[in-house]
């Protein structure tokens, strides 16, 4: 058992809100991701059991979306927007700066387990570009100084 009882309860409660139980697959994946920070076949299986749907239905849905990765990431997942409005204000340099500062490659986990940096498509923050999302939160109007301060903060929180 990987998913906690409370996660399973939350999944079965959510399912009751939908006319058809399959609609609860995405919400269930969110619950699992929030609990563990990644997904696995074992979690698909447990979700399938709770919802009484097939394993492949869960696996197929999960594989389609970017928010349900199977790989583990650092404690802080930094997603830098690479799309047009952010790019026009230097987001490519932001990514390069972060990789250099954290001494890591795109998608990898830093040696201390704290950070993973990836690029993302437009995150709907275009008027406050350049921006990045760190776990659930948006950080906007970024500058070198701001990024330095944020990384220090994350490191001190551990």
């Amino acid at each position: 058992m990987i998913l906690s009882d409370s996660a399973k309860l939350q999944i079965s409660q959510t399912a009751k809100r939908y006319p058809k139980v399959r609609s609860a697959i995405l919400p269930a994946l969110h619950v699992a991701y929030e609990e563990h920070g990644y997904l696995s076949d074992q979690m698909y299986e447990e979700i399938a059991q709770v919802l009484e749907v097939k394993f492949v239905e869960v696996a197929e849905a999960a594989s389609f979306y970017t928010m349900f990765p199977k790989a583990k990431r650092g404690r802080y997942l930094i997603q830098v927007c690479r799309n047009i409005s952010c790019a026009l204000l230097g987001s490519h340099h932001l990514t390069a700066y972060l990789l250099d500062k954290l001494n890591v490659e795109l998608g990898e986990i830093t040696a201390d387990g704290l950070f993973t940096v990836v690029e993302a498509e437009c995150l709907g923050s275009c008027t406050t570009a350049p921006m990045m999302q760190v776990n659930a939160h948006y950080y906007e109007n970024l500058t070198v100084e701001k990024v330095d301060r944020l990384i220090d903060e994350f490191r001190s929180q551990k």
Partner: protein
Amino acid sequence: METKLLTQYVSDPQQHTIERAIEHGAYQAWQKVLKEIASADLIQIVKDSGLRGRGGAGFPAGMKWSFVPKDSPKPKYLCCNADESEPGTCKDRVLLEGDPHAVVEGMMIASYAIGCHTAFFYIRGEYDVSQVRMSKAIDDAYAKGFLGKNILGSGYDLDIVVHRGGGAYICGEETALLSSLEGDKGLARLKPPFPAVEGLYNCPTIINNVETLANLPHIVMKGAQWFAGLGTEKSKGTRIFSVSGHVKKPGNYELELGYSLRDLVYGLAGGILDDRPLKAIIPGGSSTPLLLPDKIDTKLDFESVAAAGSMLGSGAIIVMHEETCIVWVAEILAHFYMHESCGKCTPCRQGTGWMYEILRRIEAGHGKMEDIDTLLDIADNIEGNTICPLGDAAAVPVISTIKLFRDEYVYHIEHGKCKVRSEFKLRAK
């Protein structure tokens, strides 16, 4: 000047609470609808107002509702499309975070008009604050008796379910949104049947954009004629424009339709960054053709932007100054469409990848002259040959940049580098 109809209260830090929203008039329209307006009359009011969809296509909202079969024994559904992911667009977020009760009330009114008793709020998974505020707004509306069974003694029942997406641009397309909501991969579906007749769980379904819905309380309270008095002859009301890129004051500006692009870019948005010359503007999100500086006096309404050769789309105005390399812009957008293609039809699945590869090659300095025609060929093969409009959207930036800036492509290929510098530095402070 801005016309703050939908955004009047969004800068009030407490507007997201039900108490403050009610102080500012929230749920009065909902009570009025329940007490005095029959659903057929409500549809007529919205038709008369001239309100058109704010999600991209600009389809008349009242007319779309009237396609829902009245005599169908099946349940009817409403979906609020809050998937906002068109590059350059962040205007729905202004409402979702700043005035969520206006969106909830809009959903209630639209649900009532079409006879829906279970409505879905589909929100892009990354929008964290929006999701929290909308969920709270819905919970508080239940607590006040504005949602649930026999609402305020009217005999009308309505539930709203919040559904978070999983990160996929295609799920903003209405049929893909429905697939996603049914628990499938977010694959687009062939139309017809249109969702209004056969949508979610094969039942009649209306999908409306956040901003479209947020207009409804105002139309109910102030009347169709009042609303029709805002804007131009065929483009009524206001729109929230997201202005981004090379301007001094990027931001979301709510303007009466028909406002001048020049006044927006050089007035409200403060002009071009570093006072450089303007190079091009994308007026309606990444899926719309570029406009050259000679179109700066275009009026911002559906018809005028179309006459200028582009589309009003999602209202996302992306401004680029002269140092922007156009091939690089095309490459960034091509990467986006390649990444977001749902893969269901071959021209889009393959074509978006090929276009990206070629653009990347040209941008990296290894382009061949025949690449330009190959790009046009691929774009041409995608256009009109796909299940949903994402394929067409992917072709747009390629075709438009080659048409307007062919010389830059040629320079890039001949010299192996940009004609202009496009190294936009990250600000130090």
